[in-house]
């Protein structure tokens, strides 16, 4: 019998196959053969007075195969069961009709039991939990109770049994249910073993236990009658069952209970031992009860142990998963018992905090490693927990034994006893060093950028194109003449401060950039409420994703100073150019004048050079004019000194108020003074020891205008040979009498006596005071 079961145990090797008809046929034949053999066995054990077998293992073959292999094998199995039942019955004393009825009942019973199991538990049924063992028991009871009705009808109608109908049903029910409960677990177990192969230890232990149990069974069967033959095997088999249930998969316990059931049936049938000594009717019921109790005990025990093993495995797995998660996330889980001070930490703590895992890392030790600057705050937080505020979150630095500094974030919750005393603290410690570092880098980079922008007085703005929200920095508010936060930043508040003349251009440049999503640069004036105007240069960039604008960012720079400088420079260059060209023209005309008033080339060269020098001195004065305004005193003194008048000290008198000259006046007046001085030294008051020169000037308020009157008076002029009169005419006189009135609208007098010269130059206000235009 055992051999036949082993043979079926091989069937799952083809597993859930039976798709092709050949497989189905083979399965049908195999089930049929096994069913037939066990049916013959069952019929051989036919001891009931009503002809019903006491134990029908064939029922377990069919139901077990179906449950183990799944619903797809139902028709080959059913066919095998029907054919085998009919064949086995016909070989006995049954007629054809009853055999057919029994075959159908047996097949239906197996199908019903298997369907119920599949319906309730799904595929891959295993006896690894109490619920499933109970499920199999109930399915077997229900299926056999129903098939028993059919079987009883078969007996009554075709077998002409004299036994009471209820008794027939009861016997059918008991023997089939027992058959299913005894045999199906073995087949189910075999299928399960194939899905989850046992470890080597389990296999050897299980096999050894089964062999031991077989020996005990055989001892019971073959050592003859007597009370010992029952008691001894039972006593011996119990530890074996316990061993199998505790240490091996349920399949081994199922096999063991099958062996035990077979032994009981055997001894009962052949009147061996305890069951053989009972009265005829009772010994069958007793045997069935015995078989049932052995089976249930073994299966339930095995299932309970299997459940426990599963739970332990699941727990270990989840613990490992948690440990992995904690390590990956750099999170330490801890529990601190307040009373004992003992700390439990997750396995990754040693690695993260850098202590020796073999060494106990106590709470005080942990606190010692907290950064000194953070320690007090940390302690305050920890000891500050109360039943009202049991939890805390704290960020602190932790100094590892090797000197590394970590940033830790601790989230913990305290538990309190009934009297509000702290019992324990449980929580998580996160290593946030990396996050803090990145945060720090970002913050300092942002800080740097902000400082740079502020130092450079650069304004920034940013618009979120999805929400339309615009952000300005403080600098931008100020540039536009707003108080910081005075207005909602946006296009309108910006445009409102752009100079009306520049609005259109600024708008077009911005909109073109927006349309093409291209960087743009635009320069415009800002008109502030106080009327001041600033020049701004704005650069913008549009950030988009797949053609959709996301953000617009830009910087705006105040370029007023730069523009003013450029403008000043432009004016200066133009002025320089103007002055140079004018000077050339003046040189050109002086050359003409000198040529027309000198007789010889030598004379020309001397006079021309002197005049050029005077012109050059004036240019020197003019170039410094913005720093030191040119006064009449400076002009006169410069000309006299340049011509060597220091030799005549004491004979020259200069005097007058400070009168600043316009730049346009300086050139012409200095040329006139130059001519007067030259002539004074050459022919006039300074040419002889006796002469005296007085140059004075004063404001004359007599006229309706405030003129400046300059008087140049020479006296004591010695008579010189060669006719001075004509020598003192010429260019100098022309300058005074014609050029000054022409160029400066001055009124002049030039009176030359025998030994004196009186020259009066009256300058109008337009010639003095300085400032004004450049020319």
């Amino acid at each position: 019998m055992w051999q036949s079961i082993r043979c079926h145990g091989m069937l799952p090797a083809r597993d859930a196959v039976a798709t092709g008809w050949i497989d189905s046929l083979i399965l049908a034949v195999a089930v049929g053969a096994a069913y037939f053999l066990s049916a013959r066995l069952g019929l051989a054990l036919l001891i009931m007075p009503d002809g019903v077998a006491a134990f029908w293992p064939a029922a377990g073959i069919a139901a077990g195969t179906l449950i183990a292999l799944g619903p797809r094998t139902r028709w080959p199995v059913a066919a095998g069961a029907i054919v085998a039942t009919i064949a086995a019955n016909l070989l006995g004393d049954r007629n054809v009709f009853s055999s057919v009825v029994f075959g159908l009942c047996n097949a239906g019973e197996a199908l019903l039991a298997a369907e119920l199991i599949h319906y309730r538990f799904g595929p891959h049924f295993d006896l690894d939990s109490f619920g499933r063992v109970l499920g199999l028991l109930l399915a077997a009871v229900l299926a056999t109770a129903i098939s028993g009705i059919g079987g009883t009808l078969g007996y009554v109608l075709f077998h002409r049994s004299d036994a009471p109908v209820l008794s027939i049903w009861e016997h059918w029910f008991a023997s089939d249910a027992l058959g299913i409960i005894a045999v199906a677990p073995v087949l189910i177990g075999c299928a399960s073993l194939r899905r989850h192969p046992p470890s080597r230890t389990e296999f050897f232990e299980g096999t050894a236990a089964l062999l031991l149990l077989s020996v005990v069974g055989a001892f019971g069967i073959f050592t003859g009658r007597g009370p010992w033959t029952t008691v001894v095997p039972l006593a011996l088999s119990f530890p074996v069952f316990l061993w199998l249930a505790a240490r091996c998969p349920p399949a081994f316990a199922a096999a063991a209970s099958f062996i035990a059931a077979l032994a009981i049936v055997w001894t009962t049938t052949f009147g061996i031992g305890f069951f053989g000594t009972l009265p005829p009717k009772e010994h069958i019921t007793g045997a069935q009860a015995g078989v049932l109790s052995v089976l249930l005990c073994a299966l339930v025990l095995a299932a309970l142990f299997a459940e426990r093993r599963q739970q332990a495995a699941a727990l270990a797995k989840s613990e490992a998963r948690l440990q992995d998660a904690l390590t990956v996330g750099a999170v330490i889980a801890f529990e601190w018992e307040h009373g004992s001070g003992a700390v439990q930490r997750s396995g990754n703590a040693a690695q993260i905090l850098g202590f020796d895992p073999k060494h106990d890392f106590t709470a005080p030790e942990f606190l010692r490693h907290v950064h000194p600057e953070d320690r007090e705050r940390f302690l305050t937080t920890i000891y500050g927990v109360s039943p009202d505020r049991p939890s805390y979150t704290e960020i602190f630095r932790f100094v590892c034994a090797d000197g590394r500094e970590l940033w830790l974030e601790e989230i913990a919750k305290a538990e309190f006893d009934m009297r509000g005393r702290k019992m324990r603290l449980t929580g998580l410690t996160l290593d946030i060093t990396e996050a803090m570092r990145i945060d720090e880098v970002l913050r300092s980079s942002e800080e740097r950028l902000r400082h740079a922008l502020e130092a450079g007085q650069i304004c920034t703005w940013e618009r979120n194109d999805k929400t339309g929200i615009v952000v300005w920095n403080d600098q931008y508010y100020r540039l536009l003449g707003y108080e910081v936060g005075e207005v909602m930043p946006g296009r309108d508040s910006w445009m409102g401060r752009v100079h009306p003349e520049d609005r259109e251009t600024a708008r077009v440049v911005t909109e073109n950039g927006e349309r093409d999503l291209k960087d743009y640069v635009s320069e415009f004036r800002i008109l502030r409420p106080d009327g001041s105007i600033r020049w701004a240069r704005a650069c913008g960039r549009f950030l988009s994703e797949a053609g959709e604008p996301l953000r617009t960012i830009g910087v705006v720079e105040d370029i007023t100073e730069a523009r003013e400088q450029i403008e000043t420079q432009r004016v200066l260059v133009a002025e320089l150019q103007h002055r140079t060209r004018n000077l050339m023209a003046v040189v050109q005309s002086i050359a003409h004048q000198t040529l027309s008033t000198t007789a010889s080339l030598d004379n020309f060269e001397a006079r021309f050079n002197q005049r050029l020098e005077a012109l050059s001195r004036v240019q020197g004065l003019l170039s410094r004019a913005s720093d030191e305004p040119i006064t009449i005193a400076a002009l006169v003194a410069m000309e006299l000194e340049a011509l060597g008048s220091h030799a005549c000290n004491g004979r020259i008198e200069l005097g007058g108020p400070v009168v600043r000259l316009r730049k346009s006046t300086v050139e012409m007046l200095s040329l006139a003074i130059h001519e007067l001085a030259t002539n004074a030294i050459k022919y006039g008051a300074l040419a002889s020891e006796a002469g005296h020169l007085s140059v004075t000037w004063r404001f004359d308020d007599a006229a309706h205008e405030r003129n400046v009157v300059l008087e140049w008076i020479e006296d004591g002029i010695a008579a010189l040979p060669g006719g001075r009169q004509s020598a003192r005419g010429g260019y100098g006189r022309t300058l005074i009498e014609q050029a000054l009135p022409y160029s400066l609208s001055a009124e002049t007098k030039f009176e030359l006596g025998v030994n004196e010269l009186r020259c009066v130059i009256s300058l109008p206000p337009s010639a003095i005071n300085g400032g004004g235009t450049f020319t």
Partner: protein
Amino acid sequence: MTHIGKPPARRVLVVEDNFNIAVALTRLLKLRGNEVVGPTATVSGALALVADQPLDGAILDINLRGETVYPVVDALRAKGVRVVFMTGYDQKSIKPAYVDVPCLQKPVTVDRVLQTLFD
């Protein structure tokens, strides 16, 4: 130098605030057979001359003691008199309405001025 076929003397207005330049220019213009009207150093003086005198051409400095000569140009244009600027400034600094007036940079020869004015 022959004067056969010589055209009648042209009357040229000189407006220049620098006396030396004005004198030299006047002398040179006369040497080449022109009649000089002026010279004058102010806008008001120039306007008075434009109003009174018949003119064939005018040589104008742009900046006259801080005033610009443009009102004189307007008066001359109204009379259909040819005008040339003679200035130390760049052409760029001339007011846009007067950029069509020929502009010569100082220093310049009087022949060049006459050529620009009448050819």
